[in-house]
């Protein structure tokens, strides 16, 4: 067992874990943050996407121990109390989800896209940037719409950067 400390959704966390514990296992099984999902074994589906120090990362391909001192944000950390993050709201408004399983990873990846590519995202850019997130339900049509709308809504959203990190 080895000790690790990190900040998850603004809360300091310290724990002893087996070295082979993946970040996603740490989140789901130790922290009971089950919003982050596992959909593949090969780092491709993106259902486990979280933010590590503000960047989109696949938590199935990071050891918990690699997160020493890191700031982790999961889907559970996005909303400000009852107030949804604009990207969450956009997914709902644009029917960007069906079964909901890929959705947390999609939303986390979407926010990462906005951070890198700005608020005016055309369809082509969104589709390319979604390469690492697989959805089996929506055919992506409404996910693309959701992200374009969510990106616009994120403009000037006060305190967002903090909420997302």
């Amino acid at each position: 067992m080895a000790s690790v400390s990190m900040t998850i959704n603004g809360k300091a966390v310290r724990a002893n874990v087996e070295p082979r514990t993946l970040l996603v296992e740490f989140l789901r099984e130790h922290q009971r943050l089950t919003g982050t999902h596992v959909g593949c074994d090969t780092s491709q589906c993106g259902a486990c996407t979280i933010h590590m120090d503000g960047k989109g990362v696949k938590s199935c391909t990071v050891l918990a121990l690699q997160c020493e001192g890191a700031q982790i944000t999961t889907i559970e950390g996005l909303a400000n109390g009852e107030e949804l993050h604009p990207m969450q709201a956009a997914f709902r408004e644009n029917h960007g989800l069906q079964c909901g399983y890929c959705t947390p990873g999609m939303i986390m990846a979407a926010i990462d896209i906005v951070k890198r590519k700005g608020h005016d995202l055309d369809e082509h850019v969104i589709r390319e940037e979604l390469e690492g997130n697989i959805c089996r339900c929506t055919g992506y049509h409404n996910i693309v719409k959701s992200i374009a709308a969510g990106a616009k809504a994120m403009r000037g959203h006060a305190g967002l950067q903090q909420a997302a990190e």
Partner: protein
Amino acid sequence: MYAFEYVRANSVRGAVSALAKHEDGKILAGGHTLLPTMKQRLASPSALVDLGAIKDLAGIEQRGRSLIIGAMTTHAAVAASDVVKASIPSLAEMAHMIGDPAVRNRGTIGGSIANNDPAADYPAACLALNATIVTNQRKIPASDFFKGLYETALEPGEIIVRVAFKPPSRAAYMKFRNPASRFALVGVFVAKKGSDIRVAVTGAGNQGVFRWRAAEEALAKRFNPKSLDGLKADAGMMNADIHASPDYRAHLVAVMTQRAVAKALGK
């Protein structure tokens, strides 16, 4: 995953001594090949020596005529770097084509090169751009570094520290993706530096990354896509799997090379 010991190295020297202590220890860079392999129980290192905390292993700088990229620099950092874009724009473009955004946020140049996956992109860039791979022990020209499938010139205890690139006058990378893995089914990096023309091919060869000499010779006469008309790559050298036959890969090598040359010429 099998159980292993985890060591967080604070210096390259510390990493080397940790490796020396663990017979089957492995370096953990970005982890984006190693961890999935371990999850499937296809690798069982006794220890992982994490380089993530060694700050001076990451970074990009233009030093004289050389572009220097630290081994722990992520693909995302290379893709977004103004220094890289100014020095070797094709290298930034290539880095942007690796994996997906989240993978690029973790995967590193050092990890990619040390792994030498036959379908990875960086080996083609290194070979075409005549890069120098700098380790804790020596400098290795790319032409001596890649030794076939997943094999490199690295000795036990040897760690890549940085990679040095000399900017070419013209270069471009064209990648035809495997529709499943999104690795290169065929990737061709073409670089021209004076009369030195290099065509490096990844994804296609049954012995990993290689230089397509016949194309280089044809392009030496005239650096133009037309110079390659009718030139065929040797299907006997090509990889065969469910994703593409050797004939098709050989065909794609020629097409991608022509397109890379055209792109390098701004066409």
